């Protein structure tokens, strides 16, 4: 069984230690942020930001409540990004969906195919970037940088099926107080190696309720790309056929007899 990690949102306090650890380990430059009327500092992924904490703010029973979500690549079991990549730059390494920068051409196809819109373009290196589940650390027997940095135990790394059992147990315990509590990622988007324990519906956390590869991407991949180019073969074959048939029938030539030149 492959590795994964569990994000227990009910244990997250929004300290952003994981965000800093990720930047540190991956040597990503800090990007200037501005105040946008929320406590959330990093608004979205970028070519230099693989993870951030969503501060989803709600007023409930006259009380302000935060629904923190650590966002990063979900490490899908059947990744759409991997399927659309023409360069075969993306592969699965022990549950982690990783990109080979040597092969990536920077075409950005994976970005819009991803049901979570995770990969982002880094203009400077002309590559698409995202979280790698710290595959190179894991290969050395270390924890992903973000998991190691987490002080509350909201992040747990391990075998996916063991984490799934832990997540389900936790959800059962939460149900009494939070009736909408659920595991996210067990079957969503075909199952993901990153699992979430949510106290409420996914949309409250800024996560898609029903993550799916869009119909446009499917049409592009399934019909346009494999069948379209045959049209070129057809007209090329037609032209070659005409080249020979006009010369065999010689009628084309006779029609142009008035001109001395049969070009």
């Amino acid at each position: 069984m492959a590795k994964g990690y569990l994000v227990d949102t009910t244990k997250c306090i929004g300290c952003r230690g994981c965000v800093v650890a990720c930047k540190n380990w991956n040597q990503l430059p800090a990007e200037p942020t501005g105040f946008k009327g929320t406590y959330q500092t990093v608004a979205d992924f970028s070519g230099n930001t693989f993870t951030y904490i969503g501060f989803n703010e709600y007023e409930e029973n006259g009380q302000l409540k935060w629904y923190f979500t650590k966002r990063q690549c979900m490490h899908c079991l059947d990744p759409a990004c991997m399927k659309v990549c023409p360069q075969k730059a993306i592969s699965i390494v022990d549950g982690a969906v990783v990109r080979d920068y040597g092969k990536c051409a920077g075409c950005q196809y994976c970005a819009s195919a991803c049901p979570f819109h995770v990969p982002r373009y880094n203009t400077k290196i002309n590559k698409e970037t995202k979280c790698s589940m710290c595959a190179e650390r894991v290969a050395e027997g270390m924890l992903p940088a973000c998991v190691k940095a987490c002080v509350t135990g909201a992040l747990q790394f391990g075998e996916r099926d063991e984490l799934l059992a832990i997540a389900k147990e936790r959800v059962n315990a939460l149900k009494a107080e939070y009736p909408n509590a659920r595991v996210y990622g067990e079957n969503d988007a075909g199952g993901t190696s990153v699992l979430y324990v949510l106290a409420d519906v996914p949309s409250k956390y800024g996560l898609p309720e029903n993550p799916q590869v869009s119909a446009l991407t499917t049409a592009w991949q399934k019909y346009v790309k494999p069948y379209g180019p045959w049209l070129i073969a057809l007209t090329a074959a037609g032209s070659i056929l005409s080249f020979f048939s006009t010369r065999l029938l010689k009628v084309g030539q006779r029609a142009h007899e008035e001109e001395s030149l049969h070009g």
Partner: protein
Amino acid sequence: MVKSDEKILKCSGGARFVHWSHTICWFVMLFSGLVLFSGWFNWLAPVFGGADGADFIHKLFAIFFIAIPLIGLFVKPRSFIEWMKMAFRWGKDEFVFMMKFPFDFIGFKVNMPPQERINAGQKINSILFPLLGFFLALSGTIMWFADNFPVWLVQLAYIVHDCCWIIGTAQVCFHAYLGSLHPGSGESFWAMFGDGKVRASWAKHHHTKWYEEVVGRE
């Protein structure tokens, strides 16, 4: 009166410049694009210095691809308008030409109705290519700066881009063959490739209406 072996101008210098420079762009962008299209064309990648290089060349030539027709349009707006007016002028002669064309294509003898400076098939070409070029440039720009557009638009742009280069390249096969090796076409090929001129006798036969306009009725 023009003598039958005298030559008349069919393609202006500007038209020839835009035509051939754009053709070069088309093929460079086609082959660099194919490397980005699928792993099938990996063998082409070394030509551009890898898939990275193909991406770079594709974007570099995109600038020329957009700039060349814009320069043409800027320098000679009127000839573009004239060209488009002619391309969109369709009468009975044009439709009969297109209906009879498949027979000519195979090699049967057909009597074509008189044509203007560009025949009905060339008119279709004259509408199709600028249209495809426009949508290639539009979708390509969205794909290039994908992060600045809504995701659905980027997803749509991929389909548009692929449909345009596929239809365009399929049309290029017909166009290149009909404009060179198809019986009777040699003259106009050398006009486009050479000094832009065709022999009056050829023009009279292939583009009767235009011949009469330029040379006058006999």
